[in-house]
């Protein structure tokens, strides 16, 4: 009797703590969503209502009426997609090579890739800024996309190499006996087997570029080239009086794509993160 009481109590405490964890993890986003639907009057009113009393999309209208907001959204989206695609392509080619062929320097290369993974962006962005200034390529979205790839590429290569190592050689050998060239065996037989891994790696790369502030802040300056991170951070530039409603609407819009990707790939992502997590 006493034992079952104790286990019930234990369970209750356990569930309570877990529930608290979930609330702490999700509350900020929920609070931002509710806040974004409140009138500016209500945002300043004590005591705070959890749910907006008179929900309004006014903040979102104001956000969309900001000059170039839609442009910023598409900038962020396309640079993220392009940098992700580029990283994945390069990572697949090198991942295959590094797990199948032993050529002089292949071991060293593997080691260097892990080394570059640890190099923080803050050390690279300063010289990149000075190089791009000299080349007159600052404030250029193409150059930005290429440079931001330096954050995604090393971990994409790292992850894809470990995924390629897990694919048995027997499939491509069979394909080659059937007359495939080695390269054809690679993209017709090996790559399709890794589609889930490629998607998981791609989602992480996308999120990483989507969330980037540093490269954008330092390399992009004109209003039509701004990314969402820059739009939101620039709203804090004015002193003291911040447009909270619009800021919150902006945070919600900037989170939705990441949230969708997360929901879509959460199971695959967790597997990869167990290895030590992505940069950032």
């Amino acid at each position: 009797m006493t034992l079952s009481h104790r286990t019930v109590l234990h369970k209750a405490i356990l569930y309570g703590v877990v529930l608290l964890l979930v609330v702490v993890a999700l509350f900020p986003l929920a609070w931002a969503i509710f806040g974004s639907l409140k009138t500016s009057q209500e945002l300043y009113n004590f005591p705070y209502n959890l749910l907006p009393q008179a929900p309004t999309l006014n903040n979102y209208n104001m956000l969309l009426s900001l000059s170039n907001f839609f442009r910023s959204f598409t900038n962020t989206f396309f640079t993220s997609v392009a940098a992700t695609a580029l990283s994945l392509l390069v990572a697949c080619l090198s991942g295959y090579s590094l797990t199948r062929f032993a050529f002089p320097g292949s071991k060293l290369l593997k080691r260097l890739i892990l080394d570059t993974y640890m190099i923080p962006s803050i050390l690279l962005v300063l010289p990149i800024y000075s190089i791009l200034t000299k080349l007159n390529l600052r404030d250029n979205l193409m150059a930005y996309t290429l440079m931001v790839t330096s954050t995604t590429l090393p971990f994409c290569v790292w992850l894809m190499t470990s995924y390629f190592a897990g694919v048995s050689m027997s499939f491509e050998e069979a394909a080659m006996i059937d007359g495939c060239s080695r390269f054809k065996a690679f993209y017709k037989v090996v790559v399709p087997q890794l589609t889930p891994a490629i998607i998981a790696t791609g989602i992480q790369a996308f999120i990483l570029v989507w969330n980037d502030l540093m490269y954008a802040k330092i390399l992009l300056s004109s209003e039509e080239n701004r990314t969402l991170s820059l739009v939101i951070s620039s709203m804090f530039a004015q002193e003291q009086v911040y447009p909270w409603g619009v800021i919150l609407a902006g945070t919600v819009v900037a989170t939705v794509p990441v949230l969708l990707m997360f929901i879509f790939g959460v199971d695959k992502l967790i597997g990869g993160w167990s290895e030590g997590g992505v940069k950032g």
Partner: protein
Amino acid sequence: MRVRENYLPPTTALGRSDRRLGILLVLPVVFFMLVLVAYPLVNLITLSVQNYNMLSQKSRFVGLTNFIRVLSGGDFWQSLLRTLIYSLGSLIPCSVLGTLFAVLLNKDIPGRSFVRSFVIFPYIMPMVVTCAIFRYMLNDLVGILDHYAVVLGLAPRTLNLFGRYDLAMPGVIAVSVWKYSPMIMIAVLGKLQTISGDYYEAAQVDGANQWQQFWHITFPFILPPLIVVMLMRFIFLFNKWDIIYMLTGGGPLNATATLPMVLYSEAFSSYNLGKAAAIGVMMFVILLICSRFYYKLNEVAEKRL
């Protein structure tokens, strides 16, 4: 024997063409690493021994002057200390909480995989979004956390956390802990799931309580990978820029001016690229030392598995 060799496929020729393909396939990554990492790093070092004028775009060799200026002022050492306070101050609570959460979420709870996904969410929330929302919640005029800190008697009046010299750093650390504890949790959870239940059954037969089971079975299992993940996280935290830029901008009065923030403002507010690059080179040296540790620890950890 000699006759049979004639029937073998020309392996050497195939091998050679394969090797060529292998090299061809890594060329893109080598190219990108040279352009995006190696060349900028070399450039960082050359910048650090020059005085670069942003307006005329001319540079002049000045030897180690930038380093002497960086190291002789007290600012660098103070910033280094602040960087250590920030990174270790975030890492230790992250690791303790992350481990605790992992042990909790490894238990049999209804909807466990859902709970896990929810708890991981802070980690993928965009940094700018995270910081904007925390600034909102901790603001002295509209912030719910600031408000309830007063209502519950935790603070005598509105806090304005990020505007206070003594509280800005703890505030930044708190947001980091919120964001990165889940990261440690996932790493530990992955390891916990590989521990065989037999150990716990044997311990229960011997009458070990929950705490003893954790201390003598779970902890020794998760410690090696935990240390490796912690060191990696330490390197990333040490070089964290965006969270500080967004929450405090290094202020107030340099209270949160860690090395990455100092590098940034030296380069892009004071336009002193040479001095900023010298700080960067110093940070790179610290990184090299940490990464040597990382490889050593990784080796030891892998041997113990």
